[in-house]
Every structure is written in structure tokens, then in C-alpha cells.
């Protein structure tokens, strides 16, 4: 994540923006995974699926619960991290070379200073 102008406003004892970003990403992903695991395994007994697994294995409930949670946690981490990255990068940091916000480019009539340019021919 970019730590653009936040470094300058660093307050002693307060986490840097990067640290806060990482903390939020991990925590929110964990919360979402908890809720997801709870709901999924409340209505679905992994042991009942023993004959339905696509892969030829039989896992116990504990392993299924743990793998389910870890999977949801990974998905949550991926989504959180990507969201944070998308919010921290992009238009508000302006030019790709990092030169601050640009105004929209100026448009003018092509023929204005170029009397020999006949736009009708460009079709």
C-alpha cells in the first residue's frame, strides 16, 4: 500500500498507515471467515459428505471445520487486501509517475492553429 502523505503526519505511539491497513485486512478477513464458517457448518455436516467428495478422501469433522475456516480466511484475506490496494492506489494519487493530481487534458479545435488540417478528410 502506498504510504504517501501519511508519513509526514505520523503521531508518536500511533500506528503508521501501512500497519493499520494490514491490521484491518487481517482482522476483517478473520471476522468474515468466522461468520462464514459458523453459518456453513451449522447447516452442513462435513461427515455426511464422505461419499460425495470429488477427491477420494475421507476427512474427519475437525479437519473439515479447520480447512473450511482456513479456506474462508484465505478468501477473505485476498478480498480485503485487494480492496485496500484498490482504495489506496488509483485516481486520487494522480499521475502514474506520481506527480500529484492532474487537471483533465485541454481539448481544442484541431483546425484552430493548423489551417491546413481538414478534418473531413480524416474519416
Amino acid at each position, binding site marked *: 500500500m502506498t504510504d504517501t502523505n501519511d508519513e509526514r503526519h505520523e503521531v508518536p505511539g500511533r500506528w503508521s498507515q501501512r500497519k493499520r491497513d494490514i491490521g484491518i485486512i487481517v482482522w476483517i478477513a478473520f471476522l468474515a471467515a468466522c461468520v462464514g464458517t459458523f453459518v456453513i457448518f451449522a447447516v452442513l455436516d462435513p461427515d455426511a459428505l464422505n461419499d460425495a467428495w470429488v477427491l477420494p478422501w475421507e476427512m474427519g469433522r475437525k479437519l473439515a471445520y479447520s480447512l473450511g475456516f482456513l479456506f474462508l480466511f484465505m478468501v477473505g484475506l485476498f478480498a480485503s487486501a485487494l480492496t485496500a490496494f484498490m482504495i489506496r492506489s488509483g485516481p486520487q494519487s494522480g499521475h502514474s509517475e506520481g506527480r500529484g493530481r492532474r487537471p483533465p487534458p485541454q481539448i481544442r479545435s484541431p483546425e484552430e492553429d493548423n489551417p491546413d488540417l481538414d478534418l473531413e478528410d*480524416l474519416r
Partner: protein
Amino acid sequence: MNESGSGDSLYRKEPKIYPRQVSGRFARLRVIAVWVLLGLFYLLPWLDVSGKQSVLFDLPARKFYIFGLTLFPQDFVYLALLLITAGLSLFFFTALAGRLWCGYACPQTVWTEVFIWIERLIEGDRAKRMKLDASPWNAEKILRKVAKQFVWVVFAAWTGFTFVGFFTPIRELGGHVVNLALGPWETFWIIFYSLATYGNAGFLREQVCKYMCPYARFQSAMFDKDTLVISYDPDRGEPRGGRRKSVDRAEAGLGDCINCTLCVQVCPTGIDIRDGLQYECIACAACIDVCDQVMDKMEYPRGLIRYTTEHSLKHKTGHVVRPRIIVYGLLLLILVSGTLWSMTNRIPLRADLIRDRNALYRELPGGIVENVYTLKITNMDDRPHHYEMKVLNNDAVVIDLARPIDLSAEENTGISVRLRIPRAEGQGVQNLDIELQSSDDPSIRRVIKAKALMPQTTGN
């Protein structure tokens, strides 16, 4: 947020972008890409290969039909390979020539192109559209706007219908639509995908690329100084300025850029390529096309804006074909050819012998020990087969099948199997190699491993 923003320039409202129409090499290339990709999308579900819809993802039956090949959930590995191939291709093509995907193949670009074409057909070219938008709501404006929306909605609905046609046999689905007998989920997904098409291609357009697409933000990680990107050549172009054709550039102290700003006017994301590479650039190359025409007009050499590399713009030597490209390319080649080879050479039979969980073994009269299993077997072929079962490494084992192993095309079933072994054959765990072979095609054959349990003889 202050959107009207005359006071606060930080929140200046971004002007609506009316890209000017452009023709040229790259515009033609994109039209070809649109025809090919959308042609495939709209036609494929209507084509049949060996009696089945050419591409059909039958989710309820858990089977994917792709050009005569049937994929089962057990073929999960192909999905993984497909994803790896897609990721690697993205790296390969981005390192080679930037965002080719965005300019020619992204559904966002492809459908936006069609929606803009419809808009141009009904509302006229750029100047007419700007005038129409600024004019009061008179009869003509209402007529044109309503006509445009109508065609857009019909096209979006057809797109949604086709999309669902990849998951439900499309001829059946067409019948359901005609008879107003669509199921609730078919209805939901047709409407959902139609709305998505309409919203993305008619309404959001390049905003998706600018604000929502992660690829745009990641591209810098895949670029290097030898990547072909669309660039303005400032050494040649600057200082820019208007002039008559007859003006001697050297004398007037001017570069080749006549500052007509046409490159900005054709840009679908509204950027100025002369400011350098920007993450908004979707590599549509409209600026190259229009600038080449202006250069022709001025009788200057083409290529003031062109596909080039950072190295060559800075007059340094660099090679487009470089280790990175060669490594990506080789990996991609190995992956694709390996996948194709394994898909065409796969054995259309899958089998597992699963022990009955309730009993270890059973002793029968006459010194025979019986182990019970379930044979999970899938015939992945498109015709029925009868299979023979045989124990390879122990001739004394007798196989007792609950029923003959006869499977219809693409059937997946479980058959109870009893293996009877004379007690004299051994003690403890016996490892058996069991062969399954189709009786009409010996090449369809699998050997599976099974464990049989035998009683331990005690003491004497």
C-alpha cells in the same frame, strides 16, 4: 462530495467523455476482435458437436461439455491448469506488449464497442451527440434517446439469454422463452446478466477500467523497460505547436506535434498520451490511428505516437525478445501442449475401490475370508461399456459382484463388491492390484489398489 465544484478545483467534476470516432489499422484490428469474440459467444451455444451443444456447462448434472469432450468434477485439475494458463498468459502478453487484453479482448471493451456503435448509429457522430445532449427535450431528442435505449435493452437481453444458454441447453431455453415457461433461476440469471451488460457497456464504460479494474493498478509490476507500450515520442514531437503545412519545422523551432489534441479527443478514457504512460490507458491505440492520419496529412513520417519501448525512446538498446519473454513463452507452450495432450489421451474411465467402513472382514465356512467394498466407477466415454474386473497379483481371490459392471454413457455409479480369499493366502493386510478393463475396447483400462484384511492366526 462537492461535484458541481466551481469553487474547489480538487473536486472538479470530470467532464463526460465523448470519444471521437477513429479509423485505422488498430481500429480495424479491434473490429475484427469484436466480431470474432462476440461471434463465438453468440454462435457457440447454437452449434452442435457430435449431437451435443458444443459448449454447455451442465451444472445440475455436474458435467461440462466442451467440443465433444465431457469433463467431470474429477477433472478439477483441468480447471486449475486453465487458471494457471490464464495467469501466465496475462504475464506473457503484458510483458510483451502491455495491455493487449484491455484493448482487444476484455469483455468490457468488446461490449462497450458494440454499445458505442449502436449509439453512433442512432444518435450520430461525436458532434451530433454533444449537441443532442445539450439540447432541450424536443421530439427528436426523445425519439433518438428512446430508440437507443430500446436497442440497447434488446441487445443486453439477448446477451443475457445467450449467457444462460451456456448453462441450460439453449434450444430448450429458447422454447421456454417463447412459451413464457422460464424457470425462476433462468429468469433471474437472464435478467441479472442483461443488467450487467447494460450497466457495464452502456453506462459505466471506461469508468470500470479507471476505478474498478485491478489489472490497471498491477500492470506496472509486469512492465519493464523493454515492454512495447503506446507512447508519444517527445524528442520528436516537442516543442509542439500549430503551424501551416508549408512551415519549415527546423526554422520555426517546432517539433512534429501540431497540438491538434486529436489524440486526446479519440481517447475513450480521456487522457493525454503526451503526458506519458498512465494507468488509465487501456491500450486501444486510437491515438496511434488518429495521429498517423494527421502525420500523413502534414506529410510528416508516421509514428509520432507508436508502440515502442522505454529503452528505444531513450535511445538505449534493448530487445523485445528477452529472457523474461522467452521463459514465459516456453512455460506457456509446455503448459498448453501438456494440457491438450493429456486431454486428448485421457482414459475415459475412473474407478475407486472403497472399503466398507462397518466391518473389517467376515469369515465364511470353508476357510474363506470375505472383504466388502464399494466400487465407485465413472464411465467418462460418450457410449456405454461393459467392464471386466480381475485381480492381477493373486489368482486365488474370487470376485463377487452385486451386479455386472455395465455403465451407460457418462454414468457414475457405485457397485457392491465382495472379495473372497482362502485363509491360506496370508495374514494381516493383503495388497491387491485390481484391473478394470472395458470388454469392447482394451485400451480403456485402469489398475486400482485395494487392501484386504485377513485374520491373524493366534499362537499355535
